[in-house]
């Protein structure tokens, strides 16, 4: 029982999905509070973009400097290729705990077969994932009671997982977990033709089940 809840936030800061893994949370926090929490975390994330150290500024595309603000659109330039060469290495954690997967469990087998982040052969040095996307802003908030981990996809969807202090999970492991959630999200939710992009995910039972199974397989609950 280390993961408390998982939030998915869209580009403009609205909460589109949340799942609580601890029953006590739902007694104490209602959905309105969850919305407020999500937008608070989003604005904290956005604000930290303004305090980027000078060394990193040339790598960041979105850095907000009010003095050197040029025009809004710029042509895709051939010369500024060094901007994009700032990879962050993340240690790869495979999906843990294969003990409780029986052959009858359809969802678990589907997950093992389909989740993109299983294949280590895709990574060149087999151990690290290279994360180019997030240069600045928050990855991890460490407090006395809770740990909050952030992962942002290239299109701006944020995945936030809140966990308690019973187990030290680490940024790398949670990044891997949230990348898997991203791959599930793009597979199960976005390919549904009746889901409209950037809107809250409601009544998607398949996604709920898969998330639950993924969390169990990762030993986070």
């Amino acid at each position, binding site marked *: 029982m280390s993961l408390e809840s998982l939030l998915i936030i869209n*580009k403009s800061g609205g909460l589109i999905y949340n799942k609580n893994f601890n029953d006590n949370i739902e007694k104490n926090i209602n959905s309105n509070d969850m919305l407020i929490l999500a937008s608070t975390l989003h604005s904290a*994330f*956005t604000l930290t*973009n303004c305090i980027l150290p000078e060394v990193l500024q040339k790598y*960041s*595309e*979105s850095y907000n400097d009010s003095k050197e603000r040029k025009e*809004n*659109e*710029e*042509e*895709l*330039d*051939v010369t*500024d*290729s060094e*901007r*994009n*060469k700032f*990879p962050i290495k993340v240690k790869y954690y495979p999906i843990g705990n294969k003990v409780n997967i029986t052959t009858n469990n359809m969802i678990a087998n589907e997950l093992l077969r*389909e989740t*993109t*982040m299983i*294949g280590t*052969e*895709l*990574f*060149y*040095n087999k151990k690290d*994932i*290279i*994360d*180019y*996307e*997030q*240069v*600045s*802003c928050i990855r991890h908030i460490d407090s006395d009671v809770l740990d909050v981990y952030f992962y*942002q*996809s*290239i*299109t*701006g*969807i944020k995945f936030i997982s809140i966990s308690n202090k019973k187990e030290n999970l680490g940024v790398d492991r949670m990044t891997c977990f949230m*990348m898997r959630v*991203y*791959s599930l*999200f*793009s*597979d199960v939710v*976005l*390919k549904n033709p009746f889901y409209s*992009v950037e809107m809250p995910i409601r009544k998607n039972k398949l996604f709920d089940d898969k998330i639950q199974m993924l969390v169990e397989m990762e030993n986070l609950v």
Partner: protein
Amino acid sequence: MSSNISSEKTNESSTVSQVDPDYQKEIFLKQLGEHVYQQNMKKINAEFFNVTYGSFVRTLIDFYDSDADKCNEKLKAMGESIGSRLIDDFYSKVTNQIPRCSNLKDLGNTIAYVGFKMYINTVPRVIFDETNRTIKFRFESNANIFNKFVELPDDIKEKKLYYSNIVSGIIKAALAGIALNCDVEFISDTLLDDQYTDIQISNVTRIKDEVPMGQ
């Protein structure tokens, strides 16, 4: 693009290091596309796909009383709603192996070697025009899988219906998802008795305000 990966690879294999970096990038992208296609993509029967797409275009033509312009527009609009979803799928499948594109050549190579390879298993030739700042994807006569089995009737051929125009919409919306604005259009099609099928990307601009915070 992936400088540190390619340099590590050359160190491992201890080859001569005087290789053109652009060429190395191309090789890396080709390998990545092949790898993702083999490992992560679900496959369906191509002929089933052709027949489904064919009946769908046929219905559209009937609906608009064989008005080719409206059909082209509608196909592009459908492609745009597909592309805005597909960009997430693309990046979750390649699992961060490639960063945001920094120049036009990279953009063209990535779309051709990884994108087209992953989704329709054909790799078009990339023609990069330095002076006009455009990219062309050129399919040889039979390489475009949408066109298999298709023979357009004369009246539609005269009105210039681009049969696989959905692809241009997909590319446009997918690039819009990573904060790039561009125009994508078909400029020739083998079904209209041209020699090649050409898709052209022009006027690529980066919209700074749409880049998500933190990148």
